[in-house]
């Protein structure tokens, strides 16, 4: 499959501060790529470099087999949607949509046709004569998406488009964006710090930290096999439980204070040395209720009901951890329950390098 966007050895400095370091990223034609990371990780900077809104210091940007590194944003065949919507406040919705085409001196009939098509697709036909100030947040973001649509952009860039919306609208527009991608099949690059958005929308996610891509993989792979401690900790809500311990080679087990957990079922990528410090990471849903012999008894310390499921907090050798149970489960504070760690689905990391082992 051919690449739609290629970022080659990109470096970007802001004064003396290095934001992006020698970054490579290939995005395939029609792919939905999500750049995910905490604030300040460089994801928006990367997007702005791709858009041509920031001058990069080193490296190249290729869009549709065309080296656009020195090209103006308007010549890059891109459309961009911003967190703040960035609608021109003095223009009506219709003028907002047609602005780009009018700047390119496109024939009026064609403009009308394109606006009609885009407004039907986004269900904003009734709003064409309103000013942005008369629209709700969700409607504004639809118009902003429409503005990218009418330009026939090859690549869509989204800069945290849903972050200003309330939870319900966010879910609604997330669905719309996913549908849009299904129907249009354009390449889309989407920046967010919201892991739910990343998981639901992406074909592939690039998890970033300090200007470096930590892991680039499918949402499933990133959730189940995080490449390092940062990714494991960042992805998942409620977060992964971590236990710091040592590897016992003789018994192939994880020794943690006075306890031992067998690692027989764990698929090692590379076997650690004896007594090396390792971190066991296990998601709240991978700790199971079990009354068999190798289960352990714990006391419930806190209960967080979340509707669909219930999160309970317990302690293992004085380290608090959480377990996800069904929403219908009926436990009380202080109850004793038997739990077993599903080691097959756990993750082990080297304490020093923080990499998956």
């Amino acid at each position, binding site marked *: 499959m051919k690449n739609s966007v290629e970022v080659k050895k990109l470096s970007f400095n802001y004064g003396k501060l290095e934001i992006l370091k020698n970054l490579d990223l290939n995005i395939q034609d029609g792919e939905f790529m999500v750049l995910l990371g905490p604030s300040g990780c460089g994801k928006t900077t990367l997007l702005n470099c791709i858009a041509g809104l920031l001058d990069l210091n080193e490296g190249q940007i290729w869009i549709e087999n065309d080296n656009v590194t020195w090209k103006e*944003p308007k010549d890059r065949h891109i*459309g961009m949607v911003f967190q703040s919507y*960035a609608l021109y406040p003095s223009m009506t919705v219709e003028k907002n949509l047609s602005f780009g085409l009018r*700047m390119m001196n496109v024939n009026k009939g064609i403009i009308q046709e394109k606006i009609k098509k885009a407004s039907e697709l986004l269900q904003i036909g009734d709003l064409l004569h309103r000013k942005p100030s008369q629209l709700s947040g969700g409607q504004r973001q639809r118009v902003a998406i429409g503005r990218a649509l009418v330009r026939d952009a090859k690549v869509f860039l989204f800069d945290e488009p849903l972050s200003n919306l309330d939870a319900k609208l966010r879910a609604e527009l997330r669905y719309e964006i996913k549908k849009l991608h299904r129907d249009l099949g354009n390449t889309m690059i989407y920046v967010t710090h919201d892991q739910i958005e990343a998981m639901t929308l992406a074909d592939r996610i690039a998890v970033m930290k300090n200007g470096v891509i930590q892991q680039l993989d499918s949402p499933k792979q990133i959730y189940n096999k995080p490449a390092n401690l940062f990714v494991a900790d960042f992805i998942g809500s409620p977060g992964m439980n971590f236990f710091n311990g040592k590897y016992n080679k003789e018994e192939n087990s994880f020794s943690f204070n006075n306890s031992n957990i067998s690692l027989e079922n764990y698929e090692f990528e590379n076997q650690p040395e004896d007594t090396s410090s390792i971190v066991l990471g296990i998601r709240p849903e991978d700790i199971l209720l079990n009354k068999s012999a190798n289960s352990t008894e714990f006391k419930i310390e806190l209960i967080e009901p979340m509707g669909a499921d219930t999160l309970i907090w317990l302690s293992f050798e004085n380290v608090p951890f959480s377990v996800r149970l069904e929403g219908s489960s009926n436990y009380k504070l202080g109850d004793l329950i038997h739990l077993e760690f599903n080691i097959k689905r756990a993750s082990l990391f080297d304490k020093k390098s923080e990499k998956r082992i």
Partner: protein
Amino acid sequence: MSLSSLSIEPSGSKPKHLTIGRIGLYCFILICALFFLMPLYVMIVTSLKDMDEIRSGNLLYIPKTLSFYAWPKAWSEACTGFVCEGLKPGLINSIKITVPSVIVSVSLGALNGYALAFWRFKGAYLFFGLCLFGAFIPYQVMVYPLLKIESAIGIYSSLPGIILVHTIFGMPILTLIFRNFYASLPIDLFKAARIDGGNFLKIFFYVIIPMSTPITIVAVILQVTGIWNDFLLGLVFAGRDNQPMTVQLNNIVQVDFGVAEYNVDMAATILTSMIPLAVYFISGRWFVRGIAAGAIKG
């Protein structure tokens, strides 16, 4: 029965009491207003008295007999130096100077502010710093060098000459207020416009100018009053044929021979200050809004 049980239980909107502090505050405001209105009152009253009554010395009294002759005299007969045509030609000159100066300086100030706020070229901060610096230099310092420059290029003592001078002296402060206003606009708008294919001027005309109404009104008020009230630059640069109203007013008031006609002086002064007064009254709402917006966002 204890005292506390007598008081009303708090419910609904809190009752407003006129406290002594409040009364004191209102009194203070009233006195301030009267203090600042006093000169205006004296001017109006004096302009409506005849010279005999003025000489009798009761400055604050209302006129015993109303006499209006001072006003037409100030307007069209008072002597400004050797000619005796009143302030009328001065008004026309002032308009001829103010209107183009305001248009040119505000347009350029907006363009400068836009470039500084959005197109951050190398050295933009240094340039902005110099602008700030320029806004605080007393312009008397630059009068003589400017005079030499203007006479060298041959526009000294002419209408274009005075317009150029006003434009130059308006530039630092106008650039400053426009830059600060534009810096408060979301940068994403500018980014979106760049992706939509706007270049430097297209973005300015189609996206930025339509959003500049409040700050433009502030800038216009600032410039109209500033240029209208200017005396020194008009005296030095405008030339004999284009002397603005302020210079002619000075000529009426500063008589070297004959009698000082205070009623005519007062009428002439009020006539001269009519335009800035009108500007403040008509646009006061906008003026406050613009200043407030600048204060919060700038």
